[in-house]
């Protein structure tokens, strides 16, 4: 159980049997008056959002969420299929549910799938992934006019800015939380 003073951005709670994530949070309190905890809540199943204020006496159940390590298999007809490599159990997620993680999905990569009960809700990619650069403009050594970065595309189709010395065919490490280049890998 959470009390109102535990509320904060990104906390996941359960209201009327459905999981919600707090996407925006404000603590307000009039002089000598009761504290109000103003939240913007996003339903983790439907994605619908609404605002609600809670009082300090309110309490909340934690959303019954579990993460499970699964392997990405393939994409077919707009659905992404993942498999538990111990039980061989498979689940399908929609493009919306996969979200930004789609930028980092290569075959057989291990990811965390978020479940509400039996229901898959989303995907978290590993913090760092190594991907092959499939398209990059060549770098002319000494060309300082080109600036400090250039755009490249990696094997998943994701585009990002990298230092000018990165060449096509090289592997680079990307921080999936920011989507940014970290380093070249051999």
């Amino acid at each position: 159980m959470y009390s109102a003073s535990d509320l904060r951005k990104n906390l996941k709670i359960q209201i009327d049997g459905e999981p919600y994530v707090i996407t925006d949070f404000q603590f307000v309190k009039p002089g000598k008056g009761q504290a109000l905890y103003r939240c913007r809540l996003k339903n983790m199943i439907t994605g619908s959002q609404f605002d609600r204020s809670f009082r300090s006496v309110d309490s909340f159940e934690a959303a019954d969420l579990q993460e499970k390590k699964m392997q990405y298999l393939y994409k077919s007809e707009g659905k992404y299929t993942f498999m538990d490599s111990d039980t061989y159990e498979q689940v399908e997620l929609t493009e919306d549910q996969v979200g930004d993680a789609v930028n980092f999905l290569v075959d057989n990569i291990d990811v965390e799938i978020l479940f509400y009960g039996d229901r898959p809700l989303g995907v978290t990619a590993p913090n760092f992934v190594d991907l092959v650069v499939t398209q990059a403009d060549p770098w002319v050594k000494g060309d300082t006019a080109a600036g400090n970065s250039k755009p490249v595309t990696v094997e998943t189709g994701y585009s990002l800015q990298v230092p000018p010395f990165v060449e096509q065919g090289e592997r680079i490490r990307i921080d999936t939380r920011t989507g940014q280049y970290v380093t070249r890998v051999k």
Partner: protein
Amino acid sequence: MRAAMIQALRRFFIHHGYLEVETPNRVATLAPEPHIDAVVSEGCYLHTSPELLMKRLLAAGYEKIFQITRCYRKAERGRLHLPEFTLLEWYDAGKDYRHLMDECEDLFLAVARDLGRGDSLSCDGVDISLKKPWERLSVAEAFRRYGGVSLEKALDLGRFDEIMVERIEPALGPQPLFLCDYPISRGALARRKAFDQTMVERFELYIGGLELANAFSELVDQEEQRDRFEQDSAERARQGKDPYPPQERFLEALAFMPEAAGIALGIDRMAMLFADKKSIDDVVAFTPEEL
């Protein structure tokens, strides 16, 4: 900026004949505020405001006193709240809350001039004029204008605080404004109004949309104060909060306390106003999360 502002505040009070005092931060008891909770410290409480001890100094004969001190309030954290913050509190014997409104105007003007700002401040792209007099609006009128329901109805429904923060405070605008005359349940240490026994002489000062200061014409009637404390203690008990020890020494001192006006001003929020910052985090060296 913050340091220069605090130095300007001190100069103002010293120039106007106030004595700077210090009272303990660890105290034996506190006013039983229904919605303010203290942190326990080895059998004592960290004070949530220096009010009771400063009033005992008034009762002991100190007529004009001020204090700048850290205060501690449990579970208060937000864009405008820190669980440990700096309060400026001052008392003036023989005066009432109207006098404090005039004095607030003079204080902000003096600090602004001292900091080379002239008579106006810029806040979030809006010019705020500090020229006297500032608007004075009663709480009842604010409910009529902005609340959507009358003050009486809001109290009956138990929605006073909610309507205050959701509808009234956002409608008050950035210019300086005194919101005055609160219902008696919202000012346990304030004197009743002479012509309306259901209301007390309390005001809150707003500038730039920030609630900056809270002031009373102080209640000095010992028996009435005892009754009001009992009501507030009952409200705390109803919410399942631990009681504070009896405030006997304070109540005894009240018999000797002169009529007085008292006010508490949030230094951090005042620094937000003068530095044009949107979050209290931007005017302190460390937030609790950075410790």
